[in-house]
């Protein structure tokens, strides 16, 4: 009974903490319509991210982790979240949140029954994820050797400055790996009063729910309810995410990174076609926070952060160049000058990078104190000569990657084939800035994997062969977002997906319109 109370208190406290953040910081109801699903999906993801970050910052500033802190955090989360829900219920626009979910009546794909069916199926999948996750204790290499071991030490020593974690001889794998997962796991252990790794796995199906709900919410807001929820269902059914045992059913970091990175890219993409400059900034900040969560979960997250910035900048530059070359405005484009758009874009890139960087500074400062045993040191190994010397590795890694993406579809899913089909069938839409950003982001991630294979001190076939499928899992939400954006049907108000609505769209009163 006490365990149940601790679990409900801990998980509920985190989700409600996220709910408060969504209500008061990210999307105040008076300013922007946010679908119910997006609101709660984001609450889950932000809540978990905040739990990890706040625990870290508290301990970093020499606070003691443990029952008092975890109970305080959970209690604060409950109070703030319930207050946010009460505030939300007083807002007439948001009170019927499902009704507000934009069923774009002018869209030929709008179908409330289809939406309902997708919602039911997603609910069943989430329940199955929780049930299946709970059927096994933690049992894989990474989840125990890297994350669970640190979580237990944090629980026992109540500090990130634990002598064990700072000791190079203490047996743990990758001592410098980020602490998001160990910290959220110890949060539950502290509330339960003992460490039992099966319960710590509950965070992962919760992240699965958060990812799918946020994805469905944003897609339904942007692309129409029926198509948005269909895409949410497709994402939820990608086998590598669920029910593959290395996905959201286990406590490894790959699925968690897929969630955080996917949502960061989702909001960057969303912000690129958002009409209001204020919302665009807010989405960049939100994406920055979630991207920092990805970097605080696994080192790949830092690579993804860099790739986000590079692909965003490149997409912006290419789009500006294409506009300048064509010298004509697209039908849906606003009257802003190219220069002003570029300036605003650069400002958002800087804002995104600054927020994520600022969030990560304390972590990187702490990380310098941690032992370096078994670390791969990719950055330290990177040099032009090293890359040149190891070019021959591509002879093995490129076919291997292609085989994992396209050849082994029966095992990991059809998402790569479908992504390719979407690009081939909608090439014009694929080169619009938001979709170009997604494509460049995917290419950047794949290139990063190949470079990692070139630089890693481990045996190439063993290193990449045992991890490619898990790395590819981390970018599945981005592929599915690309599919969603490319295959969405053009509707009256959005001539093309991702382009900004014209001024007439913006004049439609929000209370009656269904568009953002």
């Amino acid at each position: 009974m006490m365990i149940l109370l601790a679990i409900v208190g801990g998980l509920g406290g985190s989700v409600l903490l996220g709910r408060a953040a969504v209500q008061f910081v990210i999307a105040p109801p008076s300013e922007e319509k946010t679908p119910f699903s997006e609101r709660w999906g984001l609450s889950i993801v932000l809540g978990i991210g905040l739990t990890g970050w706040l625990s870290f910052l508290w301990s970093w500033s020499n606070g003691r982790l443990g029952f008092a802190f975890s109970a305080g955090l959970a209690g604060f989360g409950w109070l703030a979240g319930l207050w946010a829900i009460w505030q939300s219920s007083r807002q007439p626009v948001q009170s019927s949140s499902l009704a507000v979910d934009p069923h774009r009546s002018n869209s030929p794909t709008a179908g409330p029954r289809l939406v309902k069916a997708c919602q039911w199926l997603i609910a069943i999948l989430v329940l199955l994820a929780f049930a299946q996750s709970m059927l096994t204790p933690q049992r894989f290499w990474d989840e125990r050797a890297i994350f669970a071991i640190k979580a237990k030490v944090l629980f026992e020593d109540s500090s990130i400055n634990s002598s064990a974690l700072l000791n190079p001889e203490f047996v743990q794998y990758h001592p410098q790996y980020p602490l998001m997962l160990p910290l959220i796991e110890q949060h539950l252990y502290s509330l339960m009063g003992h460490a039992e790794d099966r319960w710590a796995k509950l965070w992962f199906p919760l992240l699965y729910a958060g990812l799918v709900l946020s994805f469905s919410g944003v897609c339904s807001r942007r692309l129409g309810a029926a198509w948005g929820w269909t895409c949410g269902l497709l994402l939820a059914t990608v086998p590598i995410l669920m029910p593959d045992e290395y996905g959201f059913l286990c406590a490894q970091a790959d699925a968690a990174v897929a969630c955080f990175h996917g949502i960061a890219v989702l909001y960057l993409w969303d912000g690129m076609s958002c009409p209001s400059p204020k919302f665009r900034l807010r989405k960049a900040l939100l994406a920055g926070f979630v991207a920092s969560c990805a970097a605080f979960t696994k080192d790949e997250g830092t690579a993804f952060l860099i790739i986000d910035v590079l692909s965003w900048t490149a997409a912006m530059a290419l789009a500006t160049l294409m506009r300048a070359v064509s010298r004509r405005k697209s039908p849906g484009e606003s009257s802003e000058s190219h220069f002003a758009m570029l300036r605003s874009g650069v400002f958002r890139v800087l804002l995104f990078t600054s927020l994520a960087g600022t969030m990560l500074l304390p972590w990187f400062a702490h990380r310098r104190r941690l032992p370096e045993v078994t670390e791969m040191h990719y950055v330290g190994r990177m040099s032009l000569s090293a890359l040149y010397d190891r070019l021959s590795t591509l002879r093995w890694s490129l076919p291997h990657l292609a085989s994992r993406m396209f050849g082994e579809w029966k095992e990991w899913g059809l998402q790569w084939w479908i992504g390719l089909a979407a690009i081939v069938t909608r090439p014009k839409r694929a080169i619009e800035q938001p979709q170009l950003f997604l494509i460049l982001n995917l290419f950047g991630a794949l290139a990063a994997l190949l470079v990692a294979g070139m630089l890693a001190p481990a045996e190439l076939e063993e290193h990449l062969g045992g991890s490619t499928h898990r790395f590819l899992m981390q970018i599945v939400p981005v592929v599915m977002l690309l599919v969603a954006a490319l295959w969405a049907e053009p509707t009256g108000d959005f001539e093309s997906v991702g382009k900004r609505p014209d001024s007439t769209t913006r004049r439609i009163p929000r209370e009656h319109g269904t568009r953002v």
Partner: protein
Amino acid sequence: MLFRKNRTIEQAVAVCLAAAWCISVCLSLAVWLIPVDVIKVRAFDQAPEESFAQFEAVGKAEAIWWMLRVSSAGATLFLAYTWRRRIAAAGFMSGLIEDVFNLLRRKTSSGKSLKSLAGIVAWVRGTSIVAMLGLACIHQIHGMSKRASDWPYYRLNNGDEILPNISDSNRAVIRYLRTATPEQSRILVVSDQKLFFLSYYLLPRHLLHHMHPDAEHLIPRKNQERQLAAYRLSDLPATLFREQGPDYVLEYFEGPEYVESERATEDADWLRFIRNWQRDPTYVPTYTVVLRRWTEPAQ
């Protein structure tokens, strides 16, 4: 005309729901009335004549039976509720079918020349959705089957008790150290093994290991197929012992390059433990385990 069409759909849905409900009631009755033990005995009889296979078959049958019990009860309740609201359900179903066709079929396009292209895109999109959902169904069934196969090993036991997914030798060493050392002790290990799982399951004991740099990025293979480089006790500098202040020192080697057969019986406590564990009073382990209390040598 429209009224007649709606009436037909309503009747069809009502018939389908009634049939599904009858099937689920029968299934529920069957799975709840037949005791799990009957199914376990049947699975045992049908399994190959091998204790491991029988253990797996019995556990899997038990898991599948419980899955059937829960899902059939849920389905019966859901179908009963839906049948009570069959008129609304019929409306919902016909609307859903229409929505799905709207989603899958070709969409209108302004230009004639675009019509065929739009048709191809819609066809590819529809086929992709159907293929993805079909593959997902197969994976969900496979996933549930996999969980049922896992059930005999894990059940609802804590990982600390069953020590899952590690070698038998690792498991024996963990259990031995748990009995032979107090909880807060610091154990310095010299070993040719990766000790992460030992470290995890032995917490709050702290396991200390000076890893050989050549073994740092190597992944071990089953049955000691890959020999990892390791330091022996005599290789370690005295400063390491002073810095780490261990309470115990453990020598644990499994690879042929490091195992010394004459040391297999050196630690009497270990020998007693492993013989008791194996239920064989003459058993001699094939790997070296020697645990000693560490006292700093006099200056």
